[in-house]
């Protein structure tokens, strides 16, 4: 699954994203923790405050109770009554007895006894100003809190001394208590911070209002406070550590991951930018062994890649060269020629320059081949190639484009210079002695030249695409001449060669071949002499208005336009349709002519696959001309034998029209041999020729082939054919080619 484009980011973006996300999550976690604990802390503070309030309230209540109880006990003390009874030693009693007794509490500032008139038992001269001192006389018996300016709160409490067996008031006892020290020493505070405890007020206040004048702070849970401080410290430490961590992670990441990746990425980009250049590996040393290994691996891999690439290049060049080099002659082959020619066409389109096309061909090469054998033929080709190449200027290579056909492309040369080059080559060929390879007679070569500007030196008037065809025509012209073996293409050659083929006709033929329109198949019967069994040779016609175009004109166009494969394909389709429509009677057959070029097509076998279902009811014969078979014998064997195994029959057409070599007969992948009409007619020739024909026919029969004699036009010829051993006859005697198979039955 391909991730969305937005997710494809650099490692920095991802790192920053992860870092920021992680940091935010950690901060969120810490913040959440802080908030939770803060709430707990607040709750605990509230609880502590409540406990402190309750504690203070309780202590104040107890203080009032205790002080009241204390002063009651004091008032009931025998020795107080003793002093009222006899005040002689009051001061001694105060100093030496009272303060050492259990009645004088630690934080009492003063205890005084007053007489029943509320005056001090022993009068003092000075006025008492310190609130810690009790007044000289009691003005108000109610308990009062006296506040001082230095935040001291003193309690003044008085209690009457009553005679035990009556209500008689004997006197009064008064105590002054420094409240804050009293509270702090008399009570232990569990929930109140003693240091925060203080009493404030102005003037005096009744004891009942004591709670309104006390200020304090609760003791927060020390564990909680310690924990809170610990958490604060922890959070601060965590934040510092987080910050340090981020820095360390960022620096570490940069050093460990990001930088190496940047360096490696840059290195890879360098290699990508200049893949054929050998860069030294980055000098940086990485922390991670994996990156180190990756760096070495990339470098080594690139080195290996360069080595491999070089080897591949070498191999490619070798293969490229081999693919474009003719094995026999070691010169450029047909593929190299096609590429070179296409380049010429392309460059010509951009910038037209003078271009000439030159074709060399060995005259009567097939006869030579047949006479001296293929090995000698090959030697002729090899020597010819070397000779032509040597005679050519260095910048003009020669291409072997056919069996004995060589082509040369010449540019930026005038017509005359081109002719001179051709002449030099031809002279070299003619001067070369082929006796070294066993050829005694003198070989002749023909040269055809075409030129983009055949008539004018400074005007390009000829289309470059025409040059091969024109050179070919010129070469054929040269072949026809014994004296002028170099022919330069002239426009007249076209009219001479194809005077009947008008442009309109050409267009009709080409269109029919490409579209199938106007093609009309004619069928000429072929009859077996033994059982009169018929099959038909299919022959193409093309309709043009009210007339028919016949094979001479059709194949003239096909050969010049190299449309052999296209017309064969179209004929096969037409015949297939005819069989399908029942045009060709069942239990007969049809014979289909195919060209050498079609035979050499990769899809040759598959072209006939649609016929396979009809093989039971039709005899399907594929006719191949002799030259095609001989020129490509091994390949033809493999392809034709496949078809034969499928049930097709192979016929060798026009046997005897060329340079048939009887020695090939035994090895040909064929079932039928068709004698050319010239051989059939030769049965009427002199006795010697007749015997040769008959012997040849006999040899064919003995080789196991069926023998078809073409051109049987009368009864006499039929009889001679039978005598010669023909298994089948074909000719006007049986019927001319016709749209719907027609047959006369002479037998």
């Amino acid at each position, binding site marked *: 699954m391909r991730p969305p484009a937005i997710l494809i980011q650099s490692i920095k973006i991802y790192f920053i994203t992860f870092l920021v996300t992680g940091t935010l999550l950690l901060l969120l976690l810490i913040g959440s923790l802080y908030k939770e604990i803060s709430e707990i802390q607040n709750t605990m503070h509230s609880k502590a405050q409540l406990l402190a309030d309750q504690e203070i309230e309780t202590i104040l209540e107890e203080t009032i109770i205790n002080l009241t109880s204390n002063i009651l006990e004091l008032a009931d003390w*025998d*020795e107080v009554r*003793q002093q*009222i009874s006899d005040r002689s*030693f009051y001061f001694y009693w105060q100093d*030496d*007895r009272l303060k050492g007794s259990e009645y004088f509490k630690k934080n009492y500032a003063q205890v005084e006894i007053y007489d029943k008139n509320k005056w001090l038992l022993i009068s003092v001269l000075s006025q008492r100003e310190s609130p810690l001192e009790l007044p000289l006389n009691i003005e108000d018996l109610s308990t009062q809190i006296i506040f001082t300016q230095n935040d001291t709160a003193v309690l003044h409490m008085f209690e009457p001394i009553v005679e035990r*067996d009556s209500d008689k008031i004997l006197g009064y006892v008064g105590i002054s208590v420094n409240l804050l020290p009293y509270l702090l020493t008399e009570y232990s505070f569990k929930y109140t911070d003693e240091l925060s405890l203080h009493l404030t007020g102005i003037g005096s206040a009744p004891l009942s209002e004591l709670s309104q004048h006390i200020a304090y702070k609760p003791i927060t849970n020390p564990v909680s406070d310690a924990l809170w401080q610990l958490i604060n410290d922890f959070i601060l430490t965590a934040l510092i550590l987080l910050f340090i961590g981020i820095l360390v992670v960022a620096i570490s990441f940069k050093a460990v991951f990001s930088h190496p990746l940047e360096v490696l990425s840059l290195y890879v980009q360098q290699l990508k930018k200049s893949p054929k250049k050998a860069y030294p590996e980055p000098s940086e040393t990485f922390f991670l062994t994996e990156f180190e290994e990756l760096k070495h691996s990339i470098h080594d891999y690139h080195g290996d890649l360069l080595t491999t690439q070089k080897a591949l290049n070498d191999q490619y060049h070798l293969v490229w060269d081999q693919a474009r080099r003719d094995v026999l002659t070691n010169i450029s082959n047909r593929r190299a020629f096609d590429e070179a020619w296409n380049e010429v066409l392309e460059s010509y389109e951009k910038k037209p320059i003078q271009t000439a096309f030159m074709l060399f061909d060995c005259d009567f090469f097939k006869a030579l081949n047949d006479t001296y054998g293929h090995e000698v033929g090959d030697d002729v080709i090899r020597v010819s190639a070397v000779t032509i190449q040597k005679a050519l200027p260095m910048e003009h290579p020669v291409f072997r484009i056919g069996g004995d056909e060589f082509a040369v492309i010449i540019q930026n040369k005038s017509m005359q210079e081109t002719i001179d080059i051709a002449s030099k080559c031809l002279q070299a060929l003619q001067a070369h002695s082929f006796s070294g390879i066993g050829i005694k007679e003198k070989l002749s070569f023909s040269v055809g030249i075409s030129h983009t500007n055949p008539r004018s030196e400074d005007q390009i008037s000829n289309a470059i695409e025409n040059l091969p065809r024109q050179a070919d025509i010129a070469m054929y012209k040269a072949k026809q001449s014994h004296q002028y073996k170099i022919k330069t293409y002239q426009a007249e050659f076209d009219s001479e060669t194809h005077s009947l083929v008008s442009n309109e006709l050409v267009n009709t033929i080409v269109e029919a071949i490409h579209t199938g329109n106007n093609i009309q198949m004619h069928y000429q019967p072929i009859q077996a002499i033994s059982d009169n069994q018929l099959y038909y040779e299919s022959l193409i016609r093309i309709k043009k208005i009210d007339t028919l175009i016949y094979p001479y004109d059709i194949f003239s166009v096909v050969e010049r336009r190299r449309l052999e494969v296209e017309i064969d394909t179209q004929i096969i389709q037409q015949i297939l349709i005819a069989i399908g429509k029942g045009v060709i009677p069942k239990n007969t057959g049809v014979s289909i002519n195919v060209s050498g070029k079609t035979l050499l097509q990769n899809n040759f076998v598959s072209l006939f696959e649609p016929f396979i279902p009809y093989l039971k009811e039709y005899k399907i014969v594929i006719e191949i001309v002799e030259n095609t078979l001989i020129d490509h014998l091994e390949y033809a064997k493999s392809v034709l034998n496949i078809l034969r195994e499928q049930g097709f029959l192979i016929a060798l057409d026009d046997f005897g029209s060329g340079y048939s070599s009887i020695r090939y007969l035994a090895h040909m992948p064929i079932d039928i041999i068709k004698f050319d009409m010239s051989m059939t007619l030769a049965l009427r020739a002199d006795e010697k020729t007749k015997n040769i024909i008959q012997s040849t026919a006999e040899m064919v029969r003995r080789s196991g082939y069926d023998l078809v004699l073409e051109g049987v036009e009368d009864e006499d010829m039929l009889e001679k054919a039978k005598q010669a051993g023909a298994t089948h006859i074909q000719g006007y005697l049986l019927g001319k080619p016709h749209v719907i198979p027609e047959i006369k039955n002479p037998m």
Partner: protein
Amino acid sequence: MIRQLSKTTLLSVCLLILTAFGSVKAEIVSQIIQPSKIKAVADYVVGDPNKPAILILHGFLTTNQFHTITAISNILQEEEFSTLAPNLTLRIPQRRDSIKCNSIHTNTLEDDVIEVKDWVNWLKAQGHKKIILLGHSSGSSSLLQYLHENEDSAIILAIFTSLFYLNGAELGIQNSDIAAAKLAVAAQDNYPRNYSFNFCQKNYYATPNSFLSYLKMDRQYTLDTLNSLKIPNYTIMAGEDKRYNRVGLEWLKELRATSTKLVIINGTNHFFSGEYELDFQDSLINVINGY
């Protein structure tokens, strides 16, 4: 042993009965002592009017609530004697509690004698024709001095328990204290000071007059006074009183040599408390009833 156990059991049962039924209720009575005009209080329980009333006087610095006094009072009330247990005022009106060594002591032996006299008179005023005086420890000394100074036909018997003398070097009395006190008195300086007296060693805070008044009761004075008594008297001493460590067991011999009838309760302490308490009480009852 069996006898001791039976006595202990009997005492416990009596105490329980007293506590449970509260058959005997003490009445707090008071009177103004003259000439000090200090109101004194006492626990008074009325018993069989045909039986003599018994005035029970507490010891040094204590009150009638001291356990020896309450125990004696209780056993005598069981025997249906009327009892009067006054608190010497020690110049404290309506004194209720024991006082400390360091309390200011202004009282004198003479004050005590006056108060005893007043309480004897009070008893007589209540209709008691016969009175027995019973003192414990220094209370015995006060009663002895009272009897030495006063003759009253209503008083038919005196019982001194744990009787010792109050002045003597062996008791811790410092000659320097005596000298200083006498000097102060001579100088009319009666401000209180710390003395060594009785068990209040160096912290008996008293006026010189107060201190010196009790020193009259030295060893020989006490023996002589005993001898001079004109009424029948018994002296009941604890066999294991730790004060013998100071005064020596010769004190018992010396007592025996006097006209008093000495009874020694073996095994018991100064306060007659503990397992021999019943022995003391039996002896006490025997003494009273025998008389």
